[in-house]
Every structure is written in structure tokens, then in C-alpha cells.
């Protein structure tokens, strides 16, 4: 467990600049909250706030999709895996690192939302439930991205992740809502992007259950594949 934590904290450290850029968006929302008249502009503020999870998902997909490849290409992975580190622990460390980063982002978003939207009458309980949904969606998206990154280059891993997350949404539009449960990232974010000041808090826990099972499945699959990959070969 300590090994996973060490790899995760190192991952966050290495990704500090993208994380800071991510947090900049929260800061922008904060500044807008300071400048705007919350009571009259609350709908506009909500729309801005509802864009924030998209950046989190993008971070999860892009960073997750490139995580393994970049470490292999830079050869820094060799020094790490020459220690008593199992491949599964390495994958777990990368995933936990992405979750750490997104938890930080989610926490800042939640605090900003509580302050800015709370003044406009947004339900605080609903807001933190939405934060939890957002985090779950991000963890699932990053698990899918890391899974593809174990055997694909960043470009293809990102494309494959985009397809894996997007296809259930298209299927839902074509054939019905149940298809969205295939990989329920959209369902987890839906309540966030459709939330209004009058939305009552009625959580649907089914996407969370499916997401939890899928996160574990993708994590195990990624670990299994990565344990069988040659990591010290030329990548180009």
C-alpha cells in the first residue's frame, strides 16, 4: 500500500503543472463569483460551474492515456520497476495519483460552488453529491484510459478512451437509456450538467454501482496486461 502511495504522490508531483492549470479554472470561477451579482447572475454562474467537470474528465483521459507511455519513453519507469514494485502496484499508483489530483480539483470545485452557488440558493447537499458523481466519472474515465495506455500509444489510447466513453452515450440516444450503463460516465455527469437551482436531491445509485465494478475490472485488466508487457523496448 505504501508503494502505491509513493508512486501516486510522485505522479501528482510530476503532473503538478497540468493540475495547476486545472485549478486555474476553479480560480476563474471564484473570481467571477466575487465580481458578479450572485442573485441576478446565478444562472450564468451555474452554467460556468457546470463546465468544470468537462476539464476534469479531459484531464483524466489525456493524463491517463499518456501515463505509461511517457514513463516508458523517458525510461524513468526502469528505476522504479527495478525496485520491489509489482506491475499491479505501479498501475494502482498511477490510478491513485490521477484520483488524488482530481480529488483536489473536485474539493476546490466543491468549496467554490458552496461559496458561489450557495449564495444563490443552490442546495449544498446536492452540490457535494454532484462532486461525488463527478469524481466517480473521472475515476472510471481514468481507469479506462490507463487500461488502454498499457498497450497503446497516447494518441490511440486517448481515441480509444473517447470512443469507449462516447459509444454508450450514442447507443443511449439510439436504443434507449439502458445502453448508457455500459460505461456510465455520461450518467454520472448527467445530473451535474442538468442540475438547476430547483433540482431536488434524488440520487440514483445504480450508475455508481456499475462504475465501481467497472473501475475494479479495468484496473485488474490493466494490471494483468501491464504485467505481461515488455517495458524496456524501443517505443518509436
Amino acid at each position, binding site marked *: 500500500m*505504501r*508503494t502505491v502511495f*509513493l*508512486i501516486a504522490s*510522485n505522479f501528482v*508531483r*510530476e503532473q503538478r503543472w497540468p493540475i495547476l492549470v486545472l485549478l486555474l479554472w476553479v480560480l476563474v470561477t471564484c473570481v467571477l463569483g466575487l465580481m458578479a451579482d450572485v442573485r441576478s447572475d446565478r444562472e450564468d454562474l451555474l452554467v460556468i460551474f457546470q463546465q468544470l467537470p468537462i476539464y476534469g474528465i479531459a484531464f483524466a483521459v489525456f493524463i491517463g492515456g499518456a501515463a505509461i507511455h511517457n514513463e516508458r519513453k*523517458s*525510461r*524513468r519507469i*526502469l*528505476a*522504479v*520497476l*527495478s*525496485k*520491489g*514494485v*509489482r506491475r499491479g*502496484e505501479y498501475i494502482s499508483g498511477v490510478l491513485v495519483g490521477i484520483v488524488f489530483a482530481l480529488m483536489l480539483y473536485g474539493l476546490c470545485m466543491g468549496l467554490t460552488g458552496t461559496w458561489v452557488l450557495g449564495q444563490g440558493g443552490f442546495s449544498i447537499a446536492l452540490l457535494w453529491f454532484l462532486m461525488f458523481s463527478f469524481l466517480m466519472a473521472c475515476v472510471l474515465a481514468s481507469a479506462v484510459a490507463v487500461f488502454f495506455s498499457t498497450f497503446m500509444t497516447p494518441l490511440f489510447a486517448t481515441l480509444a478512451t473517447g470512443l469507449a466513453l462516447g459509444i454508450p452515450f450514442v447507443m443511449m440516444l439510439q436504443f434507449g437509456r439502458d445502453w448508457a450503463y455500459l460505461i456510465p460516465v455520461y450518467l454520472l455527469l448527467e445530473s451535474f450538467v442538468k442540475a438547476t437551482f430547483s433540482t431536488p436531491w434524488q440520487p440514483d445509485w445504480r450508475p455508481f454501482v456499475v462504475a465501481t465494478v467497472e473501475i475494479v475490472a479495468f484496473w485488474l485488466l490493466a494490471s494483468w496486461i501491464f504485467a*505481461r508487457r*515488455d*517495458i*524496456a*523496448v524501443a517505443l518509436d
Partner: protein
Amino acid sequence: MPGVIEFVNVSKEYKSWFPSRGMVRALDDFSLQVEDGEIFGFLGPNGAGKSTAIHLAMGFMRATSGHGLMLGKGFGDAATRRRVGFLAENVALYHRPAEQLVRFYGALNGMRGSSLARRAHEVVEALGLVSDARRNVRQFSRGMLQRVGLAQALVNDPQLLILDEPTSALDPVARVSVRELLLESRKAGKTIFLSSHMLSEVELVCDRVAVVNRGRLVRLGGISELLESRQESEILARGVPPNSFPGAISSDGLVRFLVEATAQRSALQRVWALGGEIVSVNPVRRSLEELFLEVTTANSSDAIGKGTT
């Protein structure tokens, strides 16, 4: 008795996704055993398969066929790697202050607390990095980076050290201190597997060497055994005319010439018959460089057969 590192008929093929690019066989039925407590030199030209063998032993890749053991466990065992120190060729490290980085790698090996801090400081000091211990390695020269790489390999006080070109970027002073460090490690009972192109270094510190070429083991043996196997002697004589022996060189009244070992006795008798005096007779010791060139430029059919240890 099992070796510290053991390759048993290991082959490794690199296959491309595209059939037109074909397949490269980096190691071909490769067998080798490294004994406990020795400094073992692993030599070969570029692309011979040295790094592939090392990466297989470390578990960075899987053999196409055959198997191997490291400290009694199959290649790739994470728990075994805690007792191993590894330095990769062209070391790549995270950008952190040097001593903090060494502590990070030590922690990955399960070390913690004050013992980790103490050991990290010890190795940083041993490698002459104390004054730069708080500097970020991003600002380091290649030689300094290599020293940090060595420090992270040594931080867990490993039973087995696997070093891939450990002195290639070091200045002569640092090279000498690394050499001393290796000799001290051997004294402490550790085994060192050293892959290097610095043949003079290898000749100075290694007990045994293996030469690999095109993925096959082409020479294996003790340094003295390999270098003295030329079957020639150099005779130094006084009081004989230089033209009495083919290829003889004369200087300061001394005549120096080479003879086949089988012709040594007759050459000595001839010196005495000519009224001369023998000053010395020494077996000719070729340099490791000469041996290396000889075996790596020869046909690969010279490979040592299966099961060689």
C-alpha cells in the same frame, strides 16, 4: 549450487506488428551463471544483447523461451528485486533534489524512517554528492546524474548489483572512486554484474567475464585465464645477436622476442648455445581489448554451446 544470476537457454525475439519489418533475435539460446561474491564483467559490442539480458533478469521483459533465476527466484520477482541494486544505461530519474530522490527510491524498496535517511546520506556521501545533495537533479551534468543513479542502486545495500555502463559518463577521479566502491562491495560479499565498454576497467576489477555477440555467448572465463591463453612467451635475453631470432627487437643490449609455447625450450637452448644469457621469460598476456576484438569480429559460429556456465 545455483548461481546468483542464472540464464538457462534463454532466447528473446523482438517481433514487429508489421510482418515486413521481420523479427530480431536479441538473445539466442543464451546460458550463463554468475557466482556469489564475484565481480562479473559482461561484454559485447553494441546490439549484442547485453541490455536485453539485463532487462530480462530485472523482469522488464519476458523471455521468448528458456528461463532464468535471480537470487534463487524466477526473473521478475518483485520481492527479490528488493535485494538488488540496478543502474540502467543512460540513467533517467525524476527531477527532485538528489538526496530526496535517493530516499524516494529507497522507500520503494521498503526502507523507511531514520535508517532510510541515514543510508541515503551515506551513499550520497560515498559518491561525492554531499555538496549537491539539495540541488535538483535537473541541473546536474550527465556524470553527476550517473552518480545519483549509482546512489539509488546502492541505497538498499543490495546483495546483488546490476550495473549497465556505470562509469561511461564519469570523470577519471569519479571512475576511480566507483572502482573502489565496487571492490569494497565485493569484499563485503556482494555480487556485481557489470556490463561495460570500458575494457580497462573491467580488466582491473572483474573476476570473470563473459563476451556476448549477436545474442550468443562467445567467451566465458576468469580474466587471467582468458588473457593468458595466447600460448606465447616473451623472452628477454642478453648477449645474443638480434638477427638470431625472427621478429626480435634490440635495445640497451637486450634482445626481446616472442616464441610459441611449444618452441620455448628450444629457443632458450639456442640463446645459451649462442653464449647469451636469459634475463626473463614471461607468458604473453594479451589485453582484454585484444580478446574482445578477436571474439567479436570472429564468426558467430564460435558461440559456446548449450548449458555453459
